[in-house]
C-alpha cells in the first residue's frame, strides 16, 4: 500500500487560502488520491478525489503533478468552520482498502 506523509498541523487566518501537501512517493499506476475532512466527534467526510492534473469542486481543489508523487489540497478563503483534520489517502479500490494516516490538523484563527 502506498504510504502518505502530511504535515501534522497547520494554522491559518480566516479568509486565507490554505494548501496542504501530501507526499506519496510509491504511488502505484492504478492508485487514486482521495482527501477526507473530519470534525471532532464525527466520522470523516469525503472532500475530493483525483488521479492526475487538477480537480475542482465546490469545496476544494486538488493539484496533482505529472509524477503523481505528491498532491496538494487547496481550500480557498478558509473560515473558522474549516478547522478540522484533513486526511490524504492513496489506494486503488477494489483491490486494496484505503489507508488513513494521521492527517493534518488545520486550525483557522479569526
Amino acid at each position, binding site marked *: 500500500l502506498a504510504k502518505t506523509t502530511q504535515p501534522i498541523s497547520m494554522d491559518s487566518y480566516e479568509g486565507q487560502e490554505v494548501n496542504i501537501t501530501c507526499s506519496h512517493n510509491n504511488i502505484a499506476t492504478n492508485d487514486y488520491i482521495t482527501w477526507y475532512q473530519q470534525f471532532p466527534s464525527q*466520522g470523516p467526510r*469525503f472532500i475530493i478525489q483525483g488521479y492526475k492534473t487538477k480537480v475542482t469542486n465546490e469545496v476544494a481543489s486538488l493539484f496533482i503533478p505529472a509524477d503523481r508523487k505528491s498532491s496538494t489540497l487547496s481550500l480557498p478563503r478558509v473560515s473558522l468552520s474549516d478547522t478540522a483534520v484533513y*486526511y490524504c489517502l492513496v489506494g486503488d479500490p*477494489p483491490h486494496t*482498502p484505503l489507508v488513513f494516516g*494521521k492527517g493534518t490538523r488545520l486550525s483557522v484563527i479569526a
Partner: protein
Amino acid sequence: DVKVTQSSRYLVKRTGEKVFLECVQDMDHENMFWYRQDPGLGLRLIYFSYDVKMKEKGDIPEGYSVSREKKERFSLILESASTNQTSMYLCASTVFRVGGQNIQYFGAGTRLSVL
C-alpha cells in the same frame, strides 16, 4: 441521502465483557469497514468485508472479530473487552468502482470506554 448508522454513540463496558458494535448502511454497498481512532494515531483499520459472510483482516485485528450475515449490517465483536480497547470506533461503507469515484461513507462513531 446516504446513511451509515452505528447503534450507539457512547458505551461503557467492564473488562472481560463481550461487546457488540453494530453498523447498518442503507445504500446497498458491498463493502464495509471497521476502524478505531485514538489520539495521535489517526484511523486504523480493524477489519473489512467485501461481501456477505466475507471478512478480511486490517492492520490491527487482534482482540476483535466481525460478522456480516446480511449485506447492510456489519458487526464488530470484542470477545473479552480490555482497557486498551477503549477508543472511538468508526464504521464505513462504500461501493468500489474501478475507474470511478470511490467514496467511503462513515457513521458518527461509537465512543467505547472499557473500565
